[in-house]
């Protein structure tokens, strides 16, 4: 059905503002002081957590972006999975969600219907309730969710609390940014697209639930700032991470697409932002691009003891997406070595 297509140019998390630009602006805002705000801006964590009682806190997040796939129903699913993921990265349970919609007045409303249907189906799968929303007329299509979840204040999975000796577990393959970019210029194979879409629309719910059964020392989800960008946020405590690039799961075709220079501006911004903090110990251009690739609705990246990591990895693998133990945390300065 040709008419059921939305025009996409550089959507998903590749559309994020660069981390450098964002940091500059956020730094200038006056801080809010409230002892119940357990997680706010400072740690660049995935979602905000606010304590209501000693046993209960709410997790709040919102995410929306332009389309990165042409199918409106799939786009709705992916945008919702991406927004819901922040709650899972904190270890929370999804409760309610509100739609965020930008839609051109001249566009066919059936498209919007399909986008919202995709989002609604994912909220249902997450065990949440879609409870409202807000829409404005805009030049381009954008969609996402504002999500509220709950969590025990003592069981928050922070992103920057990993320890030396931890292994790093990544629960989804990388390269979805490169594959959707190749697709935009008509160069992605059906197989690559299928895996990318499956990965992006896959909820991080089960992976998060499995991880919560172990003492997780740190957890985040991999999105626009790339695998290396989000890993760097995890090392805020001042540690060195050694990444084993041979163990990194990625969409196989992404390597060839990177070599063909189907690259985004987002990936290069991530590279500029991290600069010297990342050291590549071997020459592998395509792998570098995969590691800097902005991910839409990427996997969880968790730090656990080696024994827990390998056990959890086996169980998460059974969910059906490539995952892997991709590196290790060492004492040292804040830095990533890619071997």
């Amino acid at each position, binding site marked *: 059905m040709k008419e059921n297509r939305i025009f996409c140019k550089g959507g998903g998390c590749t559309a994020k503002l660069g981390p450098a630009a964002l940091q500059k602006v956020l730094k200038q805002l006056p801080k809010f002081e409230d002892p119940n705000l357990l997680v706010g801006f400072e740690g660049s964590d995935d979602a905000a957590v606010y304590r209501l009682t000693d046993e209960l806190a709410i997790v709040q997040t919102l995410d929306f972006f332009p389309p990165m796939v042409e199918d409106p129903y799939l786009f709705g699913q992916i945008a919702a999975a991406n927004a819901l993921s922040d709650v899972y990265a904190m270890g929370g349970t999804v409760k309610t969600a509100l739609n965020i919609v930008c839609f051109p007045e001249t566009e066919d409303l059936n498209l919007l219907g399909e986008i919202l249907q995709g989002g609604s189906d994912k909220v249902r799968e997450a065990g949440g309730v879609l409870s409202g929303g807000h829409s404005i007329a805009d030049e381009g299509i954008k969609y996402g969710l504002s999500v509220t979840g709950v969590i025990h204040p003592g069981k928050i999975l922070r992103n920057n609390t990993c320890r030396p000796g931890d292994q790093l577990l990544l629960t989804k393959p990388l390269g979805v940014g490169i594959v959707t*970019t190749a697709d935009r210029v008509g160069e992605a194979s059906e197989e690559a697209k299928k895996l990318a879409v499956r990965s992006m629309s896959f909820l991080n719910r089960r992976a998060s639930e499995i991880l919560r059964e172990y003492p997780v020392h740190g957890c985040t989800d991999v999105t626009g700032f790339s695998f290396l960008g989000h890993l760097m946020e995890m090392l805020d405590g001042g540690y060195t991470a*050694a990444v084993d690039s041979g163990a990194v799961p990625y969409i196989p075709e992404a390597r060839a697409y990177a*070599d063909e*220079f*189907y*690259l985004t*501006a987002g990936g*290069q911004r991530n*590279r500029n932002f991290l600069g010297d903090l990342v050291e590549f110990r071997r020459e592998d251009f395509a792998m570098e691009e995969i590691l800097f690739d902005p991910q839409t609705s990427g996997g969880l990246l968790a730090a656990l003891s080696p024994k827990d990591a390998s056990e959890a990895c086996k169980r998460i693998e059974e969910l059906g997406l490539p995952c892997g133990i991709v590196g290790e945390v*060492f004492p040292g300065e804040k830095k990533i070595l890619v071997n």
Partner: protein
Amino acid sequence: MKTIEVDARGEQCPIPMIKAKKALEELGGAGTVQIRVDNEIAVQNLKKMAAQKKLGFQSEKKGERDYQAELKQDSLPEAADGRGGAEQTGGEAVFQETEESYMNCAVGPQKHLVAAVGSRFMGDGSEELGRILMKGFLFALSQLDELPETILFYNGGAYLTTECPDSLEDLKAMENQGVEILTCGTCLDYYGLKEKLQVGGVTNMYQIAEKLAGATQVIQP
């Protein structure tokens, strides 16, 4: 020499790179592709492409949201990014190596860096922490720009080259890069580890004394 001009202003990545690639193909052989873009990130992406394809590169800011990048192809494309390029690099590497060894000779006596590991733990205190620290130390050692010439393992250190899996990969990686890894034979006997040696060779106290005495610097974790 042929020059192709491409205007990719108003286009988002990866379109400027794809246009540049097409222009290079069109060029066929030696020549220049001049491409206009409207953001610096696109210039940087084009620069990466030039590096990968072994092309000459320069760029210039022409004005607000206006940049020009120039990709220069010296020879036929096959030679630029195919086998010809590899041969060329090989030749350069050999030249550099010769120059470097010459430099080493000129600088004076060589450094003999030896690491001596007498325990499976690093430092006194918690054994759990000590084990993590030792693992971190051997990893960090393997990442140094200047690797040690020899690493000696004795007493409890003998566990690190045998039963304890923590650092075997780092040690093997260092061995592959030419680091001599030696474990004290008496210690292997004492702990019943002789059959379990996973990396490096076995040594005795004479050799250990000799290595330590001949070192210009000894590292003890």
